[in-house]
């Protein structure tokens, strides 16, 4: 199965003798042990990039043990098997192997980026990290303190305070609203047994998704997959996630002393697998997702100079889908900016878009797509997303046609059915002027004290 990159003009790259360096196709490789991966092979630079994910991330943190998934990810490269923390780190550094782990809401993500020359050592270290992390006392306490510091640091960041308060109001007590690093109290409550339980339940082959790009062939990749992931248990605990009920629209002020206010708005969004997703994507690009040229930036920044930055975008998870707006601006600009946002919301809902706006947006979205694919790391990251979002092996080739197929009627229909200025929830972190009417005012201090367990 060959997938060619399409350049915007429609010529298939990879079939052109002069562009033989390009990643010319995506294929699915299955190892002897049954580990499956998408592969895009290219020998342009002698490097290999692997992105992988295990289903079930922060959402699986037990109540009172928030921060568990995140703490695990800080410790996987701090010693494994017979290799202690500093030695493990030294081997990675000396061979210039980049091995990173992070905890997302719905999955644990990992990346491995290495020269082809050191691929085998890199795979061996990764296998050890996933199956036999040591969790020695020294690195556990060092990372616990490091995470504690990050929590403290966050509490001084109005953007973080805003996101915390906002997610709590939107998601209520749903696991998705949990603080990713935990609170000071829950972090201190974590024990090594909690961490071990997490990897036993989560790091299994049935929960694994893998994507590979770079200087490796399909024949070489099979054994490499088994080298990295073959020792993992076949199956574990599926991650159970409760349903979510959207809240009534709210208007909240989080009082915070600073030179600027942060403004966040949200309303119901659209799921990634909705048939009108691409129409919504194009609509949002025109409304506020496209930076310069998008209506929000033109009105609020360019014409009025009320802010340095404003944008809208979709927040998509398996349970909650939102359309959000973010901006930061002088306190006195909050009300005029809000009026403009609501006005643009209503205008888009009632009048939709013009053919030329649509053509411009489509040209941008299709033309900019290859900019996301300029390195092996970009590509392995894209191949992972394609699998997690069930987009199929041919997505890179098909994606621009999906965008091109969107019509003015499609956009206007989704704008009319999705957008609702009355349904916009608003949260301001800062000191908005008197005329901003909030149904709830809390102080940032409350949030901070709770996170820090004061």
């Amino acid at each position, binding site marked *: 199965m060959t997938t060619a990159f399409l350049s*915007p003009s429609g010529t298939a790259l990879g079939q052109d003798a002069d562009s033989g360096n*390009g990643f010319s196709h995506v294929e699915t490789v299955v190892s002897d042990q049954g580990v499956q991966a998408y592969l895009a092979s290219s020998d342009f630079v002698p490097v290999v990039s692997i992105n992988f994910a295990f289903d079930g991330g922060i959402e699986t943190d037990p109540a009172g043990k928030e921060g568990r998934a995140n703490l695990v990810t800080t410790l996987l490269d701090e010693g494994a098997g017979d290799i202690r923390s500093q030695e493990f780190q030294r081997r990675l550094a000396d061979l210039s192997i980049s091995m990173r782990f992070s905890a997302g809401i719905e999955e644990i993500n990992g990346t491995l980026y290495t020269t082809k020359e050191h691929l085998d050592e890199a795979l061996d270290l990764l296998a050890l990290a996933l199956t036999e992390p040591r969790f020695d006392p020294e690195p556990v306490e060092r990372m616990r303190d*490091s995470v504690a510091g990050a929590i403290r640091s966050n509490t001084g960041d109005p953007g973080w305070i805003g996101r915390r308060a906002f997610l709590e109001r939107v998601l209520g007590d749903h696991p998705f609203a949990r603080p990713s690093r935990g609170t000071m109290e829950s972090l201190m409550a974590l024990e090594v047994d909690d961490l071990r339980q997490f990897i036993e339940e989560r790091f299994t082959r049935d929960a694994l998704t893998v994507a590979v790009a770079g200087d490796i062939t399909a024949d070489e990749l099979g054994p490499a997959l088994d080298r990295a992931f073959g020792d993992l248990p076949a199956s574990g605990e599926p991650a159970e996630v409760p349903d979510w009920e959207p809240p009534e629209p709210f208007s909240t002020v989080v009082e915070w002393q600073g030179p600027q206010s942060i403004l966040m708005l949200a309303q119901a969004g659209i799921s990634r697998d909705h048939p009108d997703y691409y129409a919504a994507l194009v609509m949002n690009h025109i409304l506020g997702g496209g930076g310069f040229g998008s209506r929000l930036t033109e009105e609020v920044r360019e014409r009025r100079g009320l802010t*340095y930055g404003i944008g809208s975008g979709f927040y998509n998870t398996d349970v909650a889908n939102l359309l959000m707006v973010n901006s930061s601006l*002088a306190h006195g600009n909050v009300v005029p900016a809000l009026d403009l946002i609501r006005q643009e919301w209503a205008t888009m809902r009632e009048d939709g878009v013009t053919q030329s706006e649509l053509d411009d947006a489509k040209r941008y979205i299709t033309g900019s797509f290859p900019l996301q694919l*300029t390195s092996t790391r970009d590509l392995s990251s894209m191949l992972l997303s394609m699998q997690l979002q069930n987009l199929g092996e041919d997505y890179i080739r098909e994606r621009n046609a999906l965008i091109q197929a969107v019509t003015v009627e499609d956009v206007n229909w989704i704008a009319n059915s999705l957008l609702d200025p009355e349904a916009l929830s608003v949260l301001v972190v800062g000191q908005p002027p008197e005329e901003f009417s909030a149904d709830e005012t809390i102080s940032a201090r409350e949030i901070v004290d709770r996170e820090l367990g004061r």
Partner: protein
Amino acid sequence: MTIKRANAAATALLAVATGAGLAPSAGAEVFRPDVFELDNGLTVVVVTNRTAPVVSHMLWYKVGAADEEPGVSGIAHFLEHLMFRGTETVPDGEFSRIVQREGARSNAMTSWDYTAYFQNVASDRLGRMMELEADRMANLAITDEVVAPERNVILEERGQVVESRPSSRLNEQMYATLFQNHPYGIPIIGWRHEIEDLSINDARAFYDRWYAPNNAVLVLAGDIDVEAARPLVEETYGRIPARDVPERTRLEEPDSGAEFSVTLTSDQVQLPNWRRFYLAPTYTDDPNGHAYALQVLDELLGTGTTSRLYRSLVVEQEIAVAAGTSYRPAGVDQGPLVAYMTPRGDTGMAALEEAFEAEIERLLTEGLTEEEVATAKDRLTISSTFARDSLMAPVYAFGQALATGGTIDDVERWPSRIDAISADDVMAAAEAVFGANGRHVTGYLLPEDPDAAIRLDEPVDPDAVSPDMDTEIVQ
């Protein structure tokens, strides 16, 4: 521009200003560029990379905030904003609209030493980007109507990226202390009271003075080769006549024998942080030839979790959760090598500083092993392989080098130059920067309520205290 090493190894691949000649000499080791110069003096660098059907098109002007006249701080950056607001034939707003329509990612940035504009775009749309960029090099036509809103945008930007962030405010004051006379002491974005008074005439004067093809470097990287690039460049930039551009003259720093420190206390700070800026050579301003040795020193002393500082202060003594150094040697004049630490537990600033200084003392008195140096050199030179796996790495490497007085060879021969460094070279560089004749300023970032600090840290992230604030992210 804060670029993390992991994302752009090529930040290390920047260069000295000792080479002659424009074209790479034999033995190019990294990007293997093609280079040519137009009759009007514009230098053009082309790096072919067919990974994706896109080109990065970036124009670098050899002028930045440190070339401003006294009293109009921020004018270089203000002009960078105004460059998007109209020419004789492209009305206000149209530039961004066209760039959007072409699916390009476009941005601009101002530093002390350069101002750069780029579009990353599908390769078949490159010609249009060149037309637009060349047009605004020659025909900027800003009006009074756009000046006030754009100045407000910049005041908002200053509010967002400096005034709302205690760490940035501290950095700003540390620069102002380290550089008492040299313009690196003045923030790139400008002082607020001077931004408020910037006028259309200030912007025009700066533009007329510095924006000329003979004061610029064009870098193209991606799905393009020199044969395809040359006619496009000739037809666009090639039509703009050269103009006299002044010499870049910078004020010199006076000698100073005092100890400097800056303390910033804020209730926004939940986590104390210690940092120190040492005055250090750059590739271009390196009278005693220490820059490459300092890169090796930065690697073994303060980069990553196996560095001397991290091992001693974080792992062994358990008094810090973060410790490291950050050094970027691209610059017209000497700039800071940054050391930073975040205390752990109830460790106070004084104890932390003492432990840091003991570590530096140990380095200066007991020296280094050849093995330490060899390992650091290997880690650095391998980064040039990763740099080739990137669209933007060569663009930044060549742009920064050529805009700050370096050469193509400085980038291409960087691995060999690093490889030639000995332990003695590293010690000599360490003595020059950390020794008794060095100059530094120490910064303390403190919470309002020290009793509120229970446990302290920040993840190991050099960018968290990255001193440069020279990028504007125009979204």
